[in-house]
């Protein structure tokens, strides 16, 4: 029989092995993308594989900074994501409150529709939506893109916030009502402060979702370009049929770097929020 100290030690070792294995699985692709981004194209596919490039170079990053109009893409991305986060959060708070506090057949059906919309792949609605956006002059406009981004994040946001609101005891609002608070005072002075951690969570998560969004800006915009689509607009080098993997890797790192920083800084809020919001529906 193992002594309890030995058991504790073995459990600890096992946990570390699992943690390191998971970390390796997650971090190795990131490491590989980074290494590819600083490897000259003539060494990229060498065998045996070089896990550290023989002649590291920043030329790919310099090329991207000079030639792909990164600043315009960053500005567009910030505008679209910034407005999307603000509007979607406000709308979702109101919707989540309604779904959590009121009960009717219509509301339940509406909630199911919102959840169902999460399951529809973008490509299914792409063509009719493309025609619609053109007809209403929203194609290739900031308002059009922002509306589509908002529609993309609202189902998830409403779902999370509704669960949060459900966890707030209704007695607090009843007490406020007895003290003379009207509906808006209850929302702004009672519910909203209690929802702050949840709002932080969905804002961070939605920021990541929006930054990663590829299909909407690709399909519904031409002149307005964001960071995520830049990865498909890199110059073909050599012949017209080879993919410039060194540039793709560098662009990949430029796109994922803000996400990594964001997740690193707000990791606690993200996890707390998702755990709390996911307790019960």
């Amino acid at each position: 029989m193992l002594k309890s100290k030995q058991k504790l030690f073995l459990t600890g070792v096992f946990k570390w092995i699992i943690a390191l294995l998971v970390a390796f699985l997650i971090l190795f692709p990131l490491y590989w993308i980074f290494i590819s981004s600083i490897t000259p194209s003539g060494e990229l596919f060498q065998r045996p594989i070089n896990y550290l490039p023989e002649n590291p170079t920043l030329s790919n990053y310099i090329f991207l900074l000079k030639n792909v109009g990164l600043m315009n893409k960053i500005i567009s991305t910030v505008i679209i994501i910034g407005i999307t986060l603000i509007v979607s959060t406000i709308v979702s708070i109101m919707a989540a409150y309604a779904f959590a506090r009121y009960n009717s057949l219509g509301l339940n059906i509406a909630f199911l529709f919102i959840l169902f919309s999460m399951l529809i792949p973008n490509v299914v609605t792409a063509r009719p939506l493309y025609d619609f956006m053109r007809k209403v002059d929203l194609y290739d406009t900031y308002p059009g893109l922002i509306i589509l981004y908002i529609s993309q994040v609202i189902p998830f946001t409403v779902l999370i916030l509704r669960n949060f609101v459900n966890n707030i005891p209704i007695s607090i609002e009843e007490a406020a009502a007895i003290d003379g608070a009207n509906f808006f005072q209850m929302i702004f002075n009672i519910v909203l402060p209690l929802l702050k951690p949840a709002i932080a969570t969905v804002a961070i998560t939605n920021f990541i979702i929006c930054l990663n969004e590829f299909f909407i800006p690709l399909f519904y915009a031409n002149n307005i370009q964001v960071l995520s689509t830049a990865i498909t607009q890199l110059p073909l080098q050599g012949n017209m049929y080879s993919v410039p993997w060194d540039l793709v890797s560098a662009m990949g790192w430029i796109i994922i770097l803000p996400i990594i920083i964001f997740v690193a800084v707000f990791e606690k809020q993200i996890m707390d929020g998702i755990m709390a919001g996911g307790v019960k529906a």
Partner: protein
Amino acid sequence: MKKNNYLLILVSITLLLFGLSFSISAADYDLTLYSILTTDPDFSDWLNDVETATGLKINVIAAPTNSDTRQQKVTTILSSGDSSIDILELNDEMASSFKNSGWLAPLQAQVLTADILKYFPDGYVSDMITSRQGDIIGVPGYSGYLAFWVDQQKLDKYGFDSIDNKEDFIAFAKAASVDGNYGYGGSWERTYVFNEIATFVNLFGGDYFDWTNPANKEAIQFMYDMVHKWQVTPIEQLADKYEQLNQKFIDGKYAMIFMWGTGAEYRAANRYGQDQIHMAMMPEFKTRSIFTDSWSYVLNSASKNKEAAYKFLRYVAGEQGMLSAWDNFDRFPARSDVAKEIPENEITKMYQRYSEECIVRGRPMAPQTMEFITQMGTIFQQAMQDKITIDEFCQQAQSFVEQYK
């Protein structure tokens, strides 16, 4: 946060959206060009040349360089009758898919008139950019070749001056297949191998759209023998695309390959030169054939700026436009008369020889290009792995031709 602050945010967002909406719609251009070259370092110089010469103010939109993404986007633009883009750059695959769709405007009356058309390669124009109705739907932006590349160090090492015919090809491949290296290298991934199958079919004098032709079978048997009988090319290359092929060629794993482009990858790796990797004349098996490719400028039928578009297309089809593309993008002019004007170097000299000494062909593509290419690649891989016989390959290939052509 007070209620007023929320209202302030909402009002600010509304005003910002209105402002942004206005700023986009205020843009005023003569023409919108959808191009894959926008991130090329010399693109702005080329655009400046075009605008100066034509007097047009051109709005440029960056097209995805990733082929699947680009195909989806272009298909949507053209099929929806979207007039926001006037001119598009299409590769051979897309030109084949769209040339009979009616989405592209005919250009023979306004741009490619007989006096200009005679300078473009006949085979390419008829195979790739002429519709069933006889309309020419594109202006080739350049001429590229699926060229024959050799490693001179290996030629010297094994005592070969040049690879002139099938016998030389086999002998050199055998001689260079030592020490874990191979004489011939290919990219036989199922969507890439199409180019090589068609090249060997051409070299053997076959017809890619007729798999009852014995020459086609001979070509496939030749490729099979390279793997199994002579062992001069590895079966592992079934997974290779051009990136892997080029790396192996650079690393000395292969002695000769077929490849597009003008060797930028080899220059970047300091392996380019007459004493190292260089372009060579195509060997003559039964014929001395070579494939040409291009990206063509096409006019969206739904365009509302057709006059400006014709002006642009006349420029790119003209001498000045071809020379500007050469100066800025190193794109070999598609027009034979302009090709003679550019400064000579080893690449331009070989391209001239290809155009004069080889049978130059456009690649055999069906309207459902990628489906056809993928199906052919799949059965080719099965044949190379002995999962089907060469005869079965030819039977299935013929059925795919009948299905897709």
